[in-house]
């Protein structure tokens, strides 16, 4: 956004100015929106601290959130050119996520609300992943079908109204899609987080070199788990394939394994997402979550949506991963639609169901 637009946006007074806090995993996110306009998306990530552990360590994440909280809020307001006293409301991820990490953000948001005398909205992390596209591509078509794929979640959602009506069509029954990327990356000797590394390796590889299994896509599984996912078997299958190569003393074609694994994941995800759109008569698909940054997933989703006449919306990669702007965007929708604020006694809820948009 140009400086001129930013100033214009922050000066307009008919749209609510909302700050959103996100601390459900390893990103401390502070976003500020004016209505449906993104002013700033400030992020402090502790991902480098987790890399040496090979995965996110909750206590490491929580400590990093505490350290990053005030500096990230300060950076957000400075870059947006707004003062905290200008805010109309605070929104915060109250779940789902890592309990200790969520609590840092929820406590910070409440304290801001008390200090500034403004209303507080505790909102669902997954709903925020859907609402972020409002500041990217404008008002959400209603209903929208949303596929959220990250290190912690893999869900297909029917979204008649992102502020109070989200229905779960299916989700993973074991590993999340992003988790499978991390685990396969480890098998291939690639660093954590695995997604970007597999994406890059896969560009050099053959997508059809190895026919890895597509979980829950055939026969009875398609009846019982129609819109659910399973990536645990795929991960095991990749590990066995690699082990067999190593046991035979043969080199592991890392690029081909990465490309074929990625193809299996994106094939299942896009096939089920498009099927869900068709069966629910929804012609709008939105993809969000960290795995939505995957280049093959974006390309395949576009191809299959084009073929089916479905309009695809995918926010830019920086808004697909966890961030504060998505929380602010959902908070602004809550204010615009006149939803009542959350109670100041609101808890952090690590297993908040996706059907509960606001706590």
């Amino acid at each position, binding site marked *: 956004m140009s400086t001129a637009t930013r100033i214009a946006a922050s000066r307009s007074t008919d749209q609510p100015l909302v700050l959103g806090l996100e601390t459900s995993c390893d990103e401390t996110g502070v976003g500020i929106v004016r209505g449906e306009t993104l002013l700033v998306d400030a992020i402090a990530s502790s991902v480098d601290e987790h890399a*040496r*552990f*090979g995965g996110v*360590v909750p206590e490491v994440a929580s400590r990093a959130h*505490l350290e990053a909280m005030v500096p990230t809020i300060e950076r957000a307001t400075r870059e947006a050119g707004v003062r905290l006293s200008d805010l109309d409301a605070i929104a915060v991820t109250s779940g789902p996520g890592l309990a200790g990490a969520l609590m*840092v953000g929820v*406590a*910070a948001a409440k*304290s801001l609300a008390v200090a500034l005398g403004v209303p507080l909205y505790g909102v669902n992390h997954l709903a925020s992943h859907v609402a972020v596209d409002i500041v990217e591509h404008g008002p959400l078509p209603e209903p929208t079908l949303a596929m959220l794929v990250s290190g912690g979640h893999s869900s297909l959602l029917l979204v008649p109204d992102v502020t109070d009506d989200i229905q779960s069509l299916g989700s993973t029954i074991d590993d999340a899609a992003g988790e499978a990327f991390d685990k396969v990356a480890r098998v291939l000797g690639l660093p954590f987080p695995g997604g970007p590394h597999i994406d890059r390796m896969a560009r050099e590889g053959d997508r059809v070199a190895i026919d890895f299994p597509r979980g829950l896509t055939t026969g009875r599984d398609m009846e019982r788990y129609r819109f659910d996912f399973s990536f645990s078997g795929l991960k095991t299958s990749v590990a066995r394939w690699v082990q067999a190569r190593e046991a035979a003393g043969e080199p592991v074609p890392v690029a081909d394994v990465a490309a074929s694994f990625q193809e299996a994941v994106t094939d299942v995800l896009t096939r089920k997402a498009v099927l869900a759109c068709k069966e629910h008569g929804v012609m709008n698909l939105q993809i969000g979550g960290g795995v939505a940054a995957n280049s093959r997933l974006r390309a395949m989703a576009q191809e299959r949506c084009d073929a089916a006449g479905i309009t695809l919306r995918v926010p830019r990669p920086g808004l697909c991963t966890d961030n504060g702007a998505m929380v602010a965007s959902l908070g602004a929708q809550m204010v615009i639609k006149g939803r009542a604020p959350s109670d100041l*006694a609101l808890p952090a809820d690590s297993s908040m169901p996706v059907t509960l948009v606001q706590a």
Partner: protein
Amino acid sequence: MSRVVLAIDTSTSVSVAVSAGADWAMGWSDDPRGHTESVAPLMRDQLASAGVSAADVTDVVVGNGPGPFTGLRVGIVSGLVFAHARGIPVHGMCSLDVLAQQALEHVREGEFLVATDARRKEVYWARYRVDPDRPEQDRAVRLTDPAVVRPADLPEEVRSLPTAGRGPVLYPELFPEPLAVLDVSAGVLTGLALQRLDAGVDLPVEPLYLRRPDALTTAERATP
């Protein structure tokens, strides 16, 4: 200029106090899982009871712990964010020092301990001495750095000193001289912080974790 102080400690239970000269208010919650829920309502309610608004507050003080991490962070982040939002200074104080000051109601002289629940069969502790020559609000001198220990690993002559905090409630056979002081009072925290600030002591906010996060690096896992 008189200070209006908001004090928050979540190292033991949750205690929040607002003092505005003669007007003050203090509230607390002992729900062990309820730190996140209770701190902000307590802040709002104590401000109202003391008859001041958030904009009137001139200083924030938080207990730095040590204490169970998740709850401790809730209090510290609440204090840091409130101070930032109001553009006022925030100070931190070792929570064991506050309990030591509270213990002076029961110990008049000599040495004593503070031992609080660190979970995992351990206590956070430090050793203190009463110094009658010091100001009344800051009369417990800490002799050892805050530490975490299995109580049975403390020498018997140390464990046998009068002990404040929940250590003696949890391990009565190991701390035979309990003092009737269990949880941190944000009111006493306020008095102690003001005393030290007036004496020119710098009081940085710094969570006292005293333990590393529970996790092995991939390198550590590879070398059993």
